[in-house]
Structures are given as structure tokens and as C-alpha cells.
């Protein structure tokens, strides 16, 4: 019974950890990517002729910002492997 309970706690902690990991990990990229897109809108209204450059720069910047969100996703999936 004690062994069963300690295994349940270990697995449960891994699953809770997966949720916390993805939850906190999503805050930063969400704010950052929105900020990048907002600045791109401002820049377009100032220099509309640079549309394609700005669009490309925004997407590259957002892709790099996304990386920490993807790290969280990977760690969450690794924790699923323990908690399953």
C-alpha cells in the first residue's frame, strides 16, 4: 500500500509538473510575440514600402521568441513519459 501510494505521488507530481511547465512557459512567448506583432503594425504605418522586410523580420523574431514555449512543450512531453 505504501509503495503503491508513493508511486502514485511520484507519477502525479510528474503530471502536475508537466502542466505547470507548459503553463508558465506559455506566458512569456505569448506577451513577447504580441509585442513584436504590435511593433510591426506601428512600423508598417510609418514605412509602408518596407512591408515585406517588416513582415519577414516579425515572423523571424516571433519564431525565435517561440523557442522557449517549445522547450516547455518538450519538457512537458518528457514528463508525460514518467507520469503515464
Amino acid at each position: 500500500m505504501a509503495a503503491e501510494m508513493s508511486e502514485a505521488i511520484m507519477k502525479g507530481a510528474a503530471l502536475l509538473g508537466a502542466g505547470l511547465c507548459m503553463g508558465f512557459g506559455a506566458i512569456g512567448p505569448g506577451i513577447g510575440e504580441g509585442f513584436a506583432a504590435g511593433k510591426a503594425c506601428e512600423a508598417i504605418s510609418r514605412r509602408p514600402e518596407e512591408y515585406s522586410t517588416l513582415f519577414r523580420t516579425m515572423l523571424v523574431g516571433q519564431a525565435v521568441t517561440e523557442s522557449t514555449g517549445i522547450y516547455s512543450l518538450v519538457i512537458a512531453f518528457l514528463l508525460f513519459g514518467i507520469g503515464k
Partner: protein
Amino acid sequence: MIEGIEIANTAAFIGAALAVGFGAIGSGFGIGTAGVGATIAMATQPHERSSLFRGMLISQAVASNPSIFALVIGLILYNIGDSKLPAPDSVVMACAYLGAGLSIGFGAIGSGAGNGQTGSEAMTAIGRMPSHSSKITIMMLVGQAMGQTPVLFCLVISLILCYVQPHATLQQNLALGAAYLAAGLSIGLGAIGSGLGNGMSAAGAMSAIGRNPEQTPKLSVMMIVGQAMGQTPVLFSLVVSFMLIFSNAEFVKYGSADQVLHSFRFLGAGVCMGLAAIGPGIGSGYTGAALCEGMADRPELSQKLNNIYFVGTGVAQSTAIYGFVISLILFSL
């Protein structure tokens, strides 16, 4: 669970305190922000004092709504704690009351602060364009009504959790209790981001109307589109909350070790979606504000601005979708 202790009543009192305590943060901040905006506008336009004062009071009244919702839930929970419950030792009811308090408490933060920001920018806009004050006031109220949606979702979940009635055999089931607590956390935390973001979108639209009032019809459409996009993360949270509340069929057969494992799993699912919705909500709101301001300065660029806006917000929503996926996997493991 523990003999002779009425944990459900105790939890209802704690839930009432959490609801009103957290709920007052956002509205307090928002009402102050609206007052600052109006004061600055009065200093620049002293002869518009009366219309600015009226607008300030209207926007502050709307910004105080989320804390009034929190007060209502707080009073309901106080009455529940004060009454004689059928199952005063029920762990599940205790968790449901805590969840109800946390849901409306956290949820009121974002909408209160966001609506105040909208009011502040609207006052600045009236100070700049006093001849369009009625138009700006109407748009401010529309924007604030949209900004109120996340806290209304929280109110619905809180009311469900206040009056939920688990089956008699499930009263001490840890897994069901954790699911109710997680449902409250999911929508409560998720509403912070969308509430703030919707306020930012509407604030951007207000400042845009103040700069270029001729574009009001176009700007109002852009404001509502921006707020609808900013609402997506909180809708994911709402779906996860409903799933946590209403799918409890197999809880009866859990042993005590299973209950511990599944309670962690449900808490993980709720907290994951709640936290993951904060960032994308705020980010989408910032983008929506920038879209409205760009549109006011250069209305002829609306096509290009729209393209950038939709692609940019779509990418910013991606982490909310990751959170939703992880929640669903946790839910179905």
C-alpha cells in the same frame, strides 16, 4: 475526512475572502487609472471639465463591475459558510468553494484593470477632441462591455461551483475535489490575460478615435475584431473548466492511491490552461491596440495592417494552443 471539523464551511469562508480580496485588486487599479486619465485631460482642457467628469464617473462605474461580481460570489460563499450544510466534512465541497472564490477573484483582476485603462484613454481622447465626446463615450462603453466578457465566464463557473452537488458516494473523493479546484483556477487565471488584453485593445481604439474621429466606423470594427481575437485564450480556459466540472463519471472506482494520482493530473490540466492563457491574451491585446493606432494614422494601409495583425496574433496565440493540447492530454491520460 477529519472527524468533527467542518471543512466545507471553513473553505466557503476562505473562498469568500479570496474572491473579494483578489477581485478588488483589478478594479481598484482600473478606477485609479481612469481617474488619472480624466485629471490629465482636465488639466489640458479646463473648459471641458463637466463632460470629462461625467465620462470619468461612467468609466469608473463600469471598471468597478468585476469587483461587484466578486462581492456577489463572496456574499454567496459567506452565506454558504454560515449555513448548516448537509455534508460539512465533504472534501469535494471544500475544494469547490475554494475554486469558486479563486475563479472570480483572479478573473476580476484582468477585466478591472483593463476597463480602467480603456476609460483613461477615452478621457484623453475626449480632452483632445471635445466635439466628439458622445461618440467616444459610446465606443468606450462598447469596448468595456467586450472587456467584461472574461469575468462573466468566471462568474458562470463560480456560480456552478457554488451550487454543485456531488453524489453522496463521492463526497470524500480527492480526484473530484481537485477537478473542481482546477476548474476554478483554469478560468480564473485565464481571464487575467484576456481581460487585460481586451482593455489594451479598447484603449488603443480610444486613442485612435481621439486622433482621427472620421475613421470611427472602421476603428470600431477593428476594436471588436481585436477583442474577439484576444478572447480566444479565455475560451480555451472555459472549455477546460467545463470539462473538469462535468466529466466525473469514472471517479467512483478510484482507490486511494489512484485518487492522489488523478487529483495531481486534474490540477495540472487546470493550472496549465489557466497560466498558458495569460500571455497570449496580453500579447493579442497589445497587437490590437497597435492595429487601431496604425489605422488611425494611415487609413489607406488597412489591407497591409490587417495582414500583419492577423498573422502576428495567430503566431502569438500558438502558446495558448500548446497549453490547451497539454491540458487535453493530461485530461485524457
